[in-house]
């Protein structure tokens, strides 16, 4: 098996007396799509936050390709190829869709400090941004303010931003939450496309079992901040404990 | 009909509560013109035309309006301004346009100092006069111990320095100098320090308060009962509304620039009467000052061989003229008008809104040793 592209060891965070993530040690490899499931409040988003840098762990380390990134600022991690889309839509609301994407492209290309070139001159940047616009089928709304988009389009833009960062590690936090069924397939197709690339590592938090089944190479289960199960989808979903804490009746029926 | 003579009044009339002082000054100036021209508002056949400019208490605006007065409106003489900083900014404009600027009522010594120029005359008093007169009013001798309280900036420090020099020349001692922030409102700490410095001294013990603006430091010091240590207070005179707070210190002595009952001369008599008639209140500090400036200008215009600025300057250097404060003389070197001050003693009369600074005596200009700021003669 290939070297892990991302690994955590003993990752732990406490808020006051409450341990939200407890001693999680896990490796992720390129070409693999791991779905993280677990009840609400299990610590999935918090786990993501510690990898992408929004929160600093109380203990434990995060390694990206062997480099310790545990205490880096989010921007530095982004430079190291960690990309993240958020559970609650998190965009640049008063900028247009195209500007949103171009910002991510520009961060990736390192042009942010150029202060004397007109943005319009950097046609290369715009062209790249437009590629992601097409990929997420947002061309029609390219010049609308992000805040005015319908929910579904906002979720897509969230994904487009992540794609434009061209990271090695893709982290999606419930990308299709609240998305109607005419939109969801577009997003799932995109994720499938990244997975098909084989060189990227994908982490996906998702509650919709149909989606999980369709995409997962591997499932890990978090419960009360602890790693409860880790393995191939069929095996994990079949285990009794997962049915008890997570799936409930739905699991029983499936 | 001769060409009019234009005089610009350049004061701050908006943007600060000091605007009332400007109004007093301008009122006084107009009354002064009336008096000096016997109501004709003409000098040598030239009608006098007043131009009013508002500095808004901003030096940059002030410079622009003064330049406008000289350059666009053709003012021959300008009078102003109210605050020292604004006025300092005006000085070079007078030089640039080679026209006379009569400083009134701004106080600072520096206005006739080395940054000034030969086009600047000053009828208002300066801080040295305040401080020296104040020192003289304390009748200093070896037996006098003084603590001072002032604001911590150039005005306060310079004033105290002048006061100290005058006191120490007579053998009195300054035991501590306290400086508080300009907008201080709580004087407990400074007062406590002054009490500690003074209380064990033999002889007469005085706290001198030298303060501009509100805050009422005298009231605050008084509330801590200096009398229990045998300490007296002393402070300079003030405008009428502020004199109301002096009712708490009957018998206190100090020096004041002008009080309407303090001077006994024809000009002042006319001023008080007219002012009472028109505004049903007596004239205050700045009214008298404005009038003095007008009287100086009219006299200079009358006596000068021509209306050329150079002739006017020559006429005014050394000129002596009558004002509500008695005679004033422009000192030739720095164009500061030397003038008298009143040594007063506070009297309380319940029928009067303010405490009355009753005249003890007039401190003549000759008794004070006002430093020469610059020499315009070379």
């Amino acid at each position, binding site marked *: 098996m290939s070297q892990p592209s991302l690994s955590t060891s003993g990752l732990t965070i406490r808020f006051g007396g409450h341990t939200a993530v407890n001693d999680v040690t896990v490796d992720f490899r390129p070409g693999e799509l791991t779905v993280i499931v677990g009840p609400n409040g299990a610590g999935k988003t918090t786990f993501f936050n510690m990898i992408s840098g929004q929160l600093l762990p109380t203990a434990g380390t995060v390694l990206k390709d062997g480099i310790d990134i545990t205490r880096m600022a989010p921007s530095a991690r982004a430079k190291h190829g960690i990309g993240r889309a958020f559970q609650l839509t998190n965009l*640049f609301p008063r900028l247009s869709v195209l500007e949103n994407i171009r910002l991510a492209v520009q961060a990736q290309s390192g042009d942010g400090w150029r202060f004397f070139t007109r*943005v319009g001159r950097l046609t290369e940047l715009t062209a790249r941004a437009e590629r992601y616009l097409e990929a997420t089928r947002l061309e029609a709304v390219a010049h609308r303010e992000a805040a005015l988009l319908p929910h579904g389009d906002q979720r897509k833009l969230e994904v487009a931003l992540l794609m434009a960062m061209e990271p090695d590690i893709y982290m999606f936090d419930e990308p299709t939450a609240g998305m109607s069924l005419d939109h969801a397939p577009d997003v799932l197709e995109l994720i499938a496309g990244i997975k098909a690339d084989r060189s990227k590592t994908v982490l996906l938090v998702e509650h919709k079992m149909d989606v999980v089944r369709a995409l997962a190479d591997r499932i890990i289960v978090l419960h009360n901040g602890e790693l409860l199960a880790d393995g191939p989808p069929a095996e994990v979903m079949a285990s009794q404990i997962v049915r008890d804490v997570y799936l409930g009746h739905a699991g029983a029926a499936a | 009909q001769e060409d009019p003579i234009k005089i610009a009044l350049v004061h701050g009339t*908006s943007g600060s509560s000091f605007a009332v002082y400007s109004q007093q000054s301008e009122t006084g100036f107009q009354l002064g013109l009336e008096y000096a021209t016997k109501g004709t508002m003409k000098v040598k056949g030239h009608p006098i035309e007043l131009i009013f400019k508002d500095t808004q208490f901003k030096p940059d*605006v002030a410079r622009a309006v003064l330049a406008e007065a000289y350059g666009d409106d053709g003012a021959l003489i300008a009078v102003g301004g109210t605050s020292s900083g604004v006025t300092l900014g005006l000085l070079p404009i007078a030089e640039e346009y080679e026209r006379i600027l009569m400083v009134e009522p701004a106080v600072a010594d520096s206005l006739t100092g080395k940054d000034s120029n030969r086009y600047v005359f000053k009828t208002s008093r300066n801080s040295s006069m305040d401080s020296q007169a104040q020192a003289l009013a304390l009748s200093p001798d070896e037996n006098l111990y003084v603590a001072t309280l002032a604001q911590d*900036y150039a005005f306060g420090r310079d004033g105290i320095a002048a006061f100290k020099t005058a006191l120490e020349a007579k053998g009195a001692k300054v035991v501590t100098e306290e400086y508080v922030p300009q907008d201080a409102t709580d004087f407990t700490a400074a007062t406590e320090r002054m009490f500690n410095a003074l209380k064990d001294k033999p002889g007469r013990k005085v706290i001198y308060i030298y303060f501009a603006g509100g805050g009422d430091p005298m009231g605050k010091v008084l509330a801590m009962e200096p009398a229990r240590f045998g300490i007296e207070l002393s402070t300079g005179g003030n405008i009428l509304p502020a004199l109301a707070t002096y009712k708490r210190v009957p018998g206190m002595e100090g020096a004041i620039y002008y009080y309407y009952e303090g001077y006994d001369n024809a000009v002042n008599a006319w001023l008080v009467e007219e002012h009472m008639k028109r505004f049903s209140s007596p004239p205050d500090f700045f009214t008298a000052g404005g009038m003095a400036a007008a009287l100086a200008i009219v006299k200079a215009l009358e006596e000068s061989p021509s209306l050329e600025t150079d002739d006017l300057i020559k006429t005014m250097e050394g000129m002596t003229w009558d004002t509500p404060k008695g005679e004033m003389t422009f000192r030739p070197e720095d164009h500061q008008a030397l003038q008298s001050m009143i040594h007063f003693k506070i009297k309380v009369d319940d029928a009067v809104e303010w405490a009355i600074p009753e005249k003890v005596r007039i401190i003549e200009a000759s008794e004070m040793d006002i430093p020469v700021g610059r020499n315009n003669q070379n």
Partner: protein
Amino acid sequence: MKKGTLTVKAAALVIWALLLFAPFLFQDVRQIEVAARIAVFIVLVASYDLLIGYTGIVSFAHTMFFGVGAYGVAIALKHMGAGWGPVLLGTAGGVVVTALLAVAIGLLSLRVKAIFFAMITLAAASVVLVLASQLSGITGGEDGMTYKVPELFKPATKLFTDEAGKVVRLWGVQMNGKLAAYYFVFVIAAVLFWAMLRIVGSPLGTVLKAIRENEGRAEGIGYRVVAYRTAVFVIAAVTAALAGSAYALWLKYTGPETVLSFGIMIDILLMVVIGGMGTMWGAVIGATALVMAQYYLRDLMEVAAGATAELPLLPELLNPERWLLWLGIIFILLVYFFPAGIAGTIIDKGDRKAGA
């Protein structure tokens, strides 16, 4: 280009053109003073817009930097005498001090909540104000200081002389030092403004907007927010300092009231808002509008009070001494009805129509 944006740019360019020809168009002394002040304030306001409008940083220390620039030149000229050396040295000194101050404040406190940052800058500004009035030996204290400027800028200097040795007049305008000083200020203002236009149109400019919109996400996609914020804080501060240096040269007087007081900070805020935040061109309109109001609203009211002298009450309300009252009311109405400022509103309206 969109219609609204076009209108705003056209208006701003007209103002710049008027400023360019001001000495010839308006031959009064006061008008030139007004024009120079407008030019300086355009730069000051535009640099502030870079902070507040583009990056979303509320700072009350902008006049402090303006003041440091002005005092740099003033102190150098005062203590070293007139000459170009002191001007350069003073400007350089002002810029260096400004940059150091800005880096220190930025790194220390750009991490705290926006409103706390505003208060810290307010505190820093008042400390500098107190210092300026305290160190009266160097700064002239409360009263400020006057000084001589290089020969070239003295009104008596003749730029061009005819055979008789008199100053040449071009369309009735004397080719003297005052004219040189005006164009000096104008060119500096124009260059600085142009540079800022380039900045907001550059990739850096879009990053600033991103930080304003959503700081966390900007960090998340790879921008070091603190570094960018500090950088823009320094850029804006240095620009303000340069504007201050030019203003000190123009005024030949520097004091707390002209370059440091909180009143100027309020003026800048008003100008940014009246013009329209985050539009850069709005700075031109805002600065012009407010400076004109400061210089002419009073006169206008004098006329109005005169015209209505017969009516009851009105003349009292229109009393020129009360012009600030009206400025305040106009200001409230502006914030109320044109939250996007003049430029912002025109852009919104015009572009929307064009888009529909």
